[in-house]
């Protein structure tokens, strides 16, 4: 990858990676740090990575860095567990996308990440599996369960009947 391609990667994918991390951990400073670290890492091995692979490399590296940060902060929720009681709090809502994002925050980290990669970036299951280190079957399961949880949130909060 050339310096020009690196800068293109910053411009093209920087916001995408940042949004993905921000929505995953809900902390703008940490998200900024994680994305900065990710690009620092990309810069260190800029000559070894092809531009065509840069996007998934960035997401994968940022995801792993985020998991490290979450583990370090002891804030990692069991990926198979989520607190159902937190799903059904009554709240006001104005916009479906906004409510969906609030519902997303209640999901386990792994489900949240795969849904974000699927919806924000349009990755397929195989690509999501490569980024997150999960099998394709696991990715599918997390996405389907996540969708059901999102729907339940909307129903329980009376957004949907």
């Amino acid at each position, binding site marked *: 990858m050339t310096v020009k391609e690196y800068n293109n990667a910053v411009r093209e994918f920087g*916001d995408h990676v940042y949004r993905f991390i921000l929505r995953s951990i809900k902390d703008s400073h940490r998200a900024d740090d994680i994305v900065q670290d990710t690009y620092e890492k990309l810069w260190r091995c800029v000559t070894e990575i092809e531009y065509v692979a840069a996007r998934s490399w960035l997401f994968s590296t940022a995801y792993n860095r985020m998991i490290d940060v979450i583990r370090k902060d002891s804030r990692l929720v069991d990926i198979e567990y989520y607190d159902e009681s937190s799903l059904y709090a009554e709240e006001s809502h104005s916009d479906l*996308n906004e409510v969906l994002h609030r519902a997303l925050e209640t999901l386990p980290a792994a489900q949240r990440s795969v849904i974000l990669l699927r919806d924000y970036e349009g990755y397929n299951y195989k690509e999501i599996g490569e980024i997150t280190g999960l099998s394709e079957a696991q990715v*599918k399961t997390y996405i389907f369960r996540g969708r*059901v949880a999102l729907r339940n949130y909307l129903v329980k909060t009376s957004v949907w009947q």
Partner: protein
Amino acid sequence: MAMTEDMEFPRLTPPGERMPSGNSLFRRPEELTDEQFDLLAAAWAEDELSGDALIELESVIASAPGKRERANSFRSLRLAPGPESWPGMRRSLRNSPAKTAVRRTIVPALLAAAAVLMLILSGPAGAKLKTLNNPARTTGTATMAVAEIPGSLPVIRKESPELNQATAAGKIIQPEQVIDAGKNIPAEQVIATGKIILSEQLLAPDMPEVASERTLPLITMHDRAEILAFAPATDRTLSTITMAKTIEPATLREEKNWMLRSISFLAGAVTGREKEIDGYMIANGCINGLNTILGWDMELAQVSNKSGDPVAVSFSSSLLSFTKPLNKFTP
């Protein structure tokens, strides 16, 4: 259990019994729970169902009117990215090596040039430059009236011993003095009459600022350069007029001392330490800077005698090496 003897190996043959209630275990798609249906519908919304699975889902949907709407609701569960943008993007952009090298070279050079220019302008020579470039408003040590001669008007020559003496003595010259002096000049010395604008910023705080515009015979007390600057091309004969000089030009030594004092002051302000700066330190700093920026390997060393006094400066690089004795009067 029946057992068949073979030649060598005994083999088990499965019995023919059947589970009596086996048929009760069969299920129909309509028997799927809501939770199971939701997972199936979520997969369907992701276009992940095909073949038998899709047929079964369709049969479930057909069996219950509300199921289709429920299944369709999963299709609208799509997150759209928000407007957030990464605040650290600019910090992560990199310059190409060539751009970096140019920036590291050009920017310090321009800054250094600007600093030197500021030093020069704030020094004694700068004061004179200001006087020359701004005839309408005089600042600095000059205590003189500034004459501005409009190009369309004729110019006269006037010799006024009183004005010359006053100017040389550094006294403030009031406009009235100029007018009086102009009136006293003999008619044969008057070349023409013109308009003179006298303006003065007085340095003494108790003196009032003088600014007036008069029509009177002139020439006053300016030096030749200024007269030529303001006189029209047809009046270049004025260049032969000897004018009284009001500002002594700063000597090179004064300028040098001023520069060194200024650099010492800047160095003290930056480092927080009072340290006298000499020419060697400045040169050494420049060489170290060039080594750092360009990756060169130049060296400047001071050679001292037994008593520790510097006697020479030695320069060495891959291309050039020399030793130059120090002038003891060098500041």
